[in-house]
């Protein structure tokens, strides 16, 4: 007999899958230089401030008469032209912090810059869901990684980190582990810390089974580049296409802290990013899942407008957010290109609070009141 707590969502009918919306978050770690990603190729100030590292006007891929792709993002041009991409310029927050970990903390917890929160915005989304008695499973949000980011940890609910569903499944099926799980009845677990540990273990066991056995039914046929990052997106595609009851996916790509010799390094990373995302979007289009998917790419900060003495850039402030999906209300460039003539101590001034982007996603995509997650209400934007 299968104990009650080990039942994977049998009750949920397949019909529930129609219109099941997914959010995929891509984190670029290290502070991606937004100005060399979406290049202001008609702005003289850009070329003046970046005498050796500006992307040449002849190399860029124009998007409109102000901004252009870094040539390493060439794979995304087709996606952009089809109306599946939107770029929001100058996203940031008041009193910006230029330290990587602090600014990442702020983006992941959606806090003010002088506030320290111990849980993340997706985690609080899970908590809010839990309160509404909707879904109560860790796999409502999955990070395709070995460890779980703060963004994914709520006060009551936490997401689950899965790099490889088969490996996780195998790990949880070792005999001793199985014995421990089966010896416990979740109904009899106490509210104390030991009960919490056993509850987490049982949920992991049950989630590993659900994720493996659901996702293995789908075989990805689309071609993906041979990079680890592309592989992670391929895993996300497998999860989405197999009908996993997951709302949020989280993936990271690092290597963007380009203080030295930026062009080569950032170029390589952008190529990894662009090629993988293009493959992912095409794949989802092919399987008719693109309308149900929204992808958001962010980085903890942009970089200073002026280059440094080592052909690199130092930590800056506002940056762009790149969005993808089949149902974008406003595809293309969402708002004016960053103003390079009015700087704040050499840095871009933010025009849009990142929490307005989150609020839009929470309200319109994940269907939860943004104030429940962001602790105060944000007006939001109009991109979906």
């Amino acid at each position: 007999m299968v104990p009650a707590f080990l039942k994977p969502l049998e009750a949920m009918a397949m019909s529930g899958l129609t219109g099941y919306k997914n959010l995929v978050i891509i984190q670029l770690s290290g502070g991606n230089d937004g100005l060399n990603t979406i290049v202001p190729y008609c702005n003289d100030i850009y070329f003046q401030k970046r005498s050796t590292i500006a992307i040449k006007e002849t190399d860029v891929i124009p998007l409109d008469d102000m901004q252009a792709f870094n040539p390493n993002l060439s794979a995304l041009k087709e996606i952009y032209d089809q109306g599946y991409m939107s770029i929001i310029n100058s996203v940031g927050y008041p009193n910006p912090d230029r330290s990587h970990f602090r600014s990442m903390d702020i983006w992941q917890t959606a806090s003010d810059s002088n506030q320290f929160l111990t849980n993340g915005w997706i985690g609080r989304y899970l908590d809010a869901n839990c309160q509404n008695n909707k879904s109560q499973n860790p796999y409502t949000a999955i990070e395709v990684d070995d460890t779980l980011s703060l963004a994914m940890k709520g006060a009551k609910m936490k997401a689950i980190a899965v790099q490889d569903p088969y490996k996780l499944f195998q790990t949880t099926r070792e005999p001793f582990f199985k014995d421990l799980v089966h010896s416990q009845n979740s109904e009899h677990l106490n509210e104390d810390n030991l009960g919490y540990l056993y509850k987490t273990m049982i949920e992991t066991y049950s989630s590993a089974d659900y994720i493996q056995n659901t996702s293995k039914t789908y075989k990805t046929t689309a071609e993906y580049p041979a990079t680890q990052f592309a592989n992670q997106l391929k895993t996300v595609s497998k999860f989405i296409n197999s009908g996993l009851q997951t709302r949020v996916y989280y993936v990271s790509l690092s290597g963007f802290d380009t203080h030295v010799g930026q062009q080569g390094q950032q170029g390589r990373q952008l190529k990894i990013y662009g090629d993988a995302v293009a493959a992912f979007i095409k794949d989802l289009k092919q399987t008719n899942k693109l309308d149900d998917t929204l992808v958001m790419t962010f980085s903890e900060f942009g970089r200073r407008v002026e280059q440094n003495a080592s052909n690199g850039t130092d930590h800056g402030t506002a940056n762009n957010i790149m969005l993808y999906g089949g149902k974008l209300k406003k595809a293309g460039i969402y708002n004016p290109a960053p103003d390079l003539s009015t700087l704040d101590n050499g840095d871009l001034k933010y025009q849009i609070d990142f929490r307005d982007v989150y609020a839009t996603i929470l309200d319109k995509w994940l269907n939860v009141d943004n104030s429940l997650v962001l602790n105060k209400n944000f007006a939001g934007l109009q991109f979906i």
Partner: protein
Amino acid sequence: MKDIKQIKHLFARAGFGMRFEDLKKYKNTSINKAVKELFENSDNDDPIAVVTQTVDDMMLAKADADTKKKFFQMERDQEKNLNLGWITKMSTTDAILREKMTLFWSNHFSCRDGKAIYIQQLNNIQRANALGNFRTLLIQVSQSPAMLLFLNNQQNHKGHPNENFARELMELFTIGRGNYTEQDVKESARAFTGWGFDKDGIFKMRPFLHDTGVKTFMGKTGNFQGEDIIDILLSKKQTARFISTKLYKYLVNETPDNAHINAMTDVFFNANYEIKPLLEFVFTADWFYDDNNTGNLIKSPIDFIVGLNRQFYVTYQKPDVLLLFQRALGQELFYPPNVAGWPGGRNWIDSSSLMYRLKIASTVLDQGLIDFTGKTDPEDEAFLATVRNQQHVVNTRVQTDPDWDKFFSDIPKDMSKVEIAQFLLEPPLNGTVQNTVNEDNDLKIMVVELVSTPEYQLY
């Protein structure tokens, strides 16, 4: 056996767990005597001195790309060695209480800033004063280059105050939120103007940057210096309460008990913020040994790793794996998430960190494989960006040498399997664990299984 159970609890909370060799030694010892010995063993303050070289920032700014790469590499190595130096110290020292409290203060005065030599210095300040006087500790921490840099007091100048330090001093280091006003932050920031350090890392009060005007802070008015602000904060009993509450959660129970915390606050305040009497009071209080204060705290990753190392006398042929463990479990020494430190408790546990915990024990004790790619810390990005290949896929055999012979030889001959299990786990044995004990004929297998249980995560 009742006293032994209590002494085991004392070792778990005031140190990193009791070993079978301690069991022999403390068989007929009273709690008071055990507490006394705990302090005696921690008398010796032995600083960490693994980082000896400092990198000159001024030179670096002018350096070429290759030199910068070398610099990043050197800094990384220094940070790594510092981390390994401390975790090895915790795993081998007899001064367990001093290290346990150094761990507490390093999270209370959370700091992460580039230079390893400054971080080492701050760690040694926290170690030297771990059982000493809180005022001395607070002033030395506040005047250390690491903290001056981290909380921007180097940039706190007359006419252009930077309030970062003043705010955290009150919010996190002394009196706590809700006990000061924004005006107090502004005024006290002025008192700390001019606090900085010179190129040799020596604290300097720079009079030309100091605001000598009159300040009004918490109802008092005067030409205050930084030390005056600290003394006003310490004159408030709320500061003693704030520290006592935090310590109670660290040593006793995550749920504060007002009566116990009131008593601790009185002791601490009346002893002029001497830390030793406060700790003695806690360790000799009856309530410290109550059942509901036993076996109910979730070990921090460091407690877990160090406890395992100590219990089984583990040596690492490739110590770098200790860094991997810390990363996989979510606590890398000297890399707290922010100035508020690690929140602890249930925040340590999610599906993946729990799975790693349940597997690491057998990996270490049984030469297992660890398969972990992991995320890079944001601070490592600059280094990563200089090296092409940045996928640190780790799938290596963990080369460890637990001293099983010593472990087994220290177990008293008359101890039953159930008693051994009860000794290794703090919470009472439940059904499955009981079965494990009954069914395993091989004592080594039984022990490895016991340390791979959720129960082992508690202390």
